[in-house]
């Protein structure tokens, strides 16, 4: 450990030569400056933002421009290859335009990922704070539930639940959230357990701060950075999870397209519809990759032990 410190110090000294003016900044200000220099993370941000914008705002314009409708079925136009007049990415087994379906699919897939991950963070952070701070029976109950629920293979229980209730997208969001908060809760609880023993918390308590004040002014801000990082990773995982579920025919039900359920019938047109299989998968992969890269970038940027310019 001491060896690393020395190495870091030397590196810092070396770095100071290059950058003489060293401005003191807050953790968040520092993180933003760091992020602005992290090209890969910025690229991931831009790609994700573009995908989101195109999915949310794009469909009406494209539909108008091509004179098409996402639900229009035209048997004569089945399995048109990409590049066919009017169908940039070809058509599917019912003659529906692949590009527009991909955009609508992105809408649902991304909406599920965003809303579910926010809900997961809300549940996980609340219960994690409660379990870590209050301890005792609250902690016991929460931890027992987590241990029980997480000793099932995750997809397995999700599969059963969503098959039995055959959910609409809104319901799927809630199911995903209710079955996805364990990791976040465990993480936050662990952090809280260590933070609440720190001296500044003790000092605040000695000054007569209430439980709520201790929790939300002194403890919560210190778990926030780790929560944001997990949030992005969770969003990536949710995209994968939702696509697997929808692929199995248990997530969002057709005719609403999602990137996952567009692949449900893939087995039947492995030969005729190669273009139908490639695109949804690539979009899922790019989206998940972006979430993971952003998560990685944020983790680096928000690490207070990271010294300036040294990685």
């Amino acid at each position, binding site marked *: 450990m001491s060896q690393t410190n020395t190495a870091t110090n030397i590196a810092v000294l070396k770095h100071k030569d290059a950058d003489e003016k060293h401005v003191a900044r807050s953790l968040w200000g520092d993180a933003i400056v760091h992020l602005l220099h992290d090209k890969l993370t910025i690229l991931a941000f831009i790609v994700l933002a573009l995908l989101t914008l195109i999915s949310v705002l794009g469909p009406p314009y494209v539909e108008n421009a091509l004179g098409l409708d996402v639900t229009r079925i035209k048997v004569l136009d089945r399995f048109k290859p990409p590049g066919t007049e009017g169908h940039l990415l070809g058509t599917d087994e019912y003659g529906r335009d692949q590009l527009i379906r991909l955009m609508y699919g992105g809408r649902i897939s991304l909406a599920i990922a965003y809303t579910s991950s926010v809900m997961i963070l809300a549940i996980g952070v609340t219960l994690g704070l409660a379990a870590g701070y209050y301890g005792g029976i609250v902690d016991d109950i929460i931890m027992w539930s987590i241990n029980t629920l997480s000793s099932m293979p995750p997809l397995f229980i999700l*599969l059963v639940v969503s098959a039995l209730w055959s959910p609409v997208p809104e319901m799927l969001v809630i199911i995903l959230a209710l079955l996805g908060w364990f990791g976040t809760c465990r993480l936050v609880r662990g952090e809280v357990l260590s933070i609440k023993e720190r001296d500044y918390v003790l000092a605040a308590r000695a000054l007569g701060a209430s439980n709520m004040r201790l929790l939300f002014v002194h403890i919560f801000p210190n778990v926030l950075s780790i929560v944001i990082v997990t949030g992005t990773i969770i969003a990536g995982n949710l995209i994968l999870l939702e696509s697997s579920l929808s692929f199995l025919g248990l997530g969002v039900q057709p005719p609403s397209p999602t990137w*996952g359920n567009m692949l449900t019938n893939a087995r039947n047109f*492995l030969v005729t519809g190669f273009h139908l299989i490639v695109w949804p998968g690539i979009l899922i*992969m790019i989206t998940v990759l972006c979430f993971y*890269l952003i998560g990685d970038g944020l983790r680096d940027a928000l690490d207070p032990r990271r010294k300036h310019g040294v990685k």
Partner: protein
Amino acid sequence: MGTYVLRRVLQGIPTFFGITLLAFMMMLFSPGDPVSLLTFNPRSGDTDSAERIRRQLGLDKPKVTQYIYWLIGNDWTQYDSDGDGTDDSPGTRSGLLRGDMGESLAPGHRDVTDLIFERIPATLLLTFSALITGYGIGILLGVLAAVYHRTWVDQVIRVISVIGNAVPQFWLGFILIIVFSIKLDVLPMSGMRNISNRGGLDLSDLVAHMILPVFVLSLNTIAFVSRFTRTELLEVLEQDFIRTARAKGLKDSVVWWKHALRNALLPVATFLGPALGTLLAGAVVIESVFAWPGLGSLVIDAVFQRDYPLVMGSVVIAAGMFILGVLFSDILYAVLDPRIRLD
């Protein structure tokens, strides 16, 4: 050591009961009536048989009683067979805890236990092969990345592991099927054996059928294990005892294999249990892509047909396998790492 193992086993018991409770509640609150599905006959309008089956299954009893019957069976008590209010026929089921998970609602009414245990070998074959492949290739890549730290090798392995995590497995399965089974025609598309191959175990045929699903399933594990091994190995290499070993004049290979890798792999080994869980869950999807006759495809069919006893049984069995996996990896860790205090 004995006490540690015993304590871990005892800790698993409340978890197991929690799972049975959860499986039971899922069925309780789910919409749809399995009995009306079972006796559906639009012409007869026969409500009597529905009532009889309901009584036989104990569905007229309070929920708590139903749960207890499911757990320990009803062969020690009697049920009301003719609906006259007196319990007159002896129960026949011996309950989950004695290995009887009821009978399937699907035509044929086979025992759930038989149905599940028929499928388990295929799933275990798939998951354990994927576990071994994942850990094998993962450790290899991790060591390579650490040895060639900060070179292009490291970068390439990093890219592989990031993409390996982000790619949807079922999709990759289809792409590989298209490439290797349709375009190149070198590997079989799906299933566990060639159609012409009746009975008998043909090892080369089985292996050929396993290559694609095992690879796809193990991809996550490869990605995770390689990252983890690399991080741990680089951390261990900073430790004082490595410097001591080098200072003693030991050969590089001895330092790497005996001192560094051994210690680096300890934490990696603890993730065997969770990794097995992830693989079991992933197997559900992969089995569907490759039409692999395992537990996963059984469960998917069962949930679509609302075959409640079969779904409940599979959930309990899958969770049980997962609990055993975690238990096993915890014990393994305790055996491997002398620093862990076992009380």
